[in-house]
């Protein structure tokens, strides 16, 4: 990853800025300039969409052989998180004992160091996820049990819910 490319992607990496198609309502992360469903009809109708950063773990794995720069963090958890808006992101889950992560765990975005270009290079920051905080956890878990989302696919966002690599 080059510094200029990372810089261009800062709004999405720093604060989960996605895109919404005003033609069909599909929500996308990472943001897209053209809706994959509406294609030509979405041109000029794609707008920025700030995602809430809240979601649930859909699938996860515990990593013991770290990627470069993650040596200090093993074992760590990588997960596919389904956001409230229906789109899915792959990200690390932190502040958690690896064995306690399971499907359905409510999580929220946190801002962390992702890696650095050596001791003299630039530091890359971005989103990771952590378990939803205590204060809000009870209320939000209660809500999700009381009114479960219709499915992993929100009604107006069929395409946005496809797993996507971040």
């Amino acid at each position, binding site marked *: 990853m080059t510094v200029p490319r990372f810089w261009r992607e*800062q*709004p999405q990496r*720093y*604060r989960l*800025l996605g895109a919404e198609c005003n033609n069909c309502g599909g929500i996308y992360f990472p943001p897209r300039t053209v809706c994959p469903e509406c294609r030509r009809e979405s041109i000029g109708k794609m707008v920025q969409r*700030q995602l809430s950063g809240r979601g649930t773990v859909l699938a996860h794995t515990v990593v013991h052989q770290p990627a*470069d*720069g*993650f*040596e*200090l*963090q093993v074992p760590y958890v990588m997960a596919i998180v389904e956001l409230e808006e229906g789109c899915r992101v792959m990200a690390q889950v*932190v*502040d958690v004992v690896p064995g306690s992560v399971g499907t359905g765990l409510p999580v929220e975005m*946190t*801002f*962390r*160091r*992702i*890696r*650095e270009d*050596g001791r003299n290079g630039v*530091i890359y*920051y971005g989103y*990771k996820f952590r378990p939803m*905080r*205590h*204060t*809000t956890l009870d*209320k939000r878990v209660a809500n999700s049990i009381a009114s479960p989302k219709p499915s992993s696919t929100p009604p107006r966002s069929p395409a946005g819910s496809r797993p996507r690599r971040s």
Partner: protein
Amino acid sequence: MKGGQSRVGIVSYGAYVPRLRIKAEEIARVWGHDAHMGDALNIQQKSVPSPDEDVATMSVEAARIAVERAGIAARRIGAIFVGSESHPYAVKPTGTIVAEALGAGPFVQMADFEFACKAGTAAVQACMGLAVSKLVDLGLAIGADTSQGAPGDALEYSASAGAAAIVVGREPSEFCAEINYTTSYTTDTPDFWRREGQKYPSHGERFTGTPAFFKHVAAAGERVFSEMGTTPEDYDYAVFHQPNGKFPKMVGKKLGFRDEQVALGLLAPRIGNTYSAAVLLGLANVLDAAKPGDRIFVAGYGSGAGSDAFDLTVSPGIAKIRGRGVPTVEDFVRSDEFLDDATYAKYRGKIQVPSGGAT
């Protein structure tokens, strides 16, 4: 604000403390110190940042909470000052990262502040001036640190990590606490320093304590009393910089405060010395519990040396920003995730690893 018609106050606040802790007895065990070192400092445990946390990440977390607590539109923020002695870059402002993460700017005044442990309160004062003079709508002041002592140094028991964010504005209906007055007492005192490029700080033993912390905090505090015509009894709470769990009570006593006034703002026994964040985290903990009309005395301290003191009155607006599902200071202070010393050393970069070491 004393001396003029303009009013200025805290519109919102946010706190962040990493979840990991290390106990004082674990540090003592490894260095072969007396197991009661922690008791002598009144520090039972301290917070430790994860390898992927630094002043920028903690500042963002605290600032997001402040913005969420009062439902502030990021574009209203016209100034961002991050005070720290452990900025991740020597050259590249931490505030730029905070602004981008909040979606604030690009029309925003910015600089990183440095004044040992009082850079955060200095940032609050700068925001007050800009807000009162209408140069900005809201100012965001942050105090954050991930400080370190040399291995085996007494600072190892206290130097910890945390961040606090304070949003300052001039619209009284938005205040959660009005700032009635602020003053600073500053001298050239070599009690503690770190030279450029050095990883760990040095301290001038002879100056720590009496001619430094106690003299400066007391002088700033006495000036607040004389300018405002108050006595310690007029305040419901007193919050001090807390390099350990003992100094705040001692300086409080020297100024005439009772331990009960100091207790709520004293977090060092449970999280250590969060440096630039310490006094603001103490204030945030008081704001989490205070009632409208409560009066708060605040005095920060930074080595080198100076003390910034404040006189605040809690506003009716405090009720509007409570109970919105935003984490309180206690939500962060309460943690039972303890590290052993080897993991601590690894996390804090005290052991050489090929790459990816913490700063």
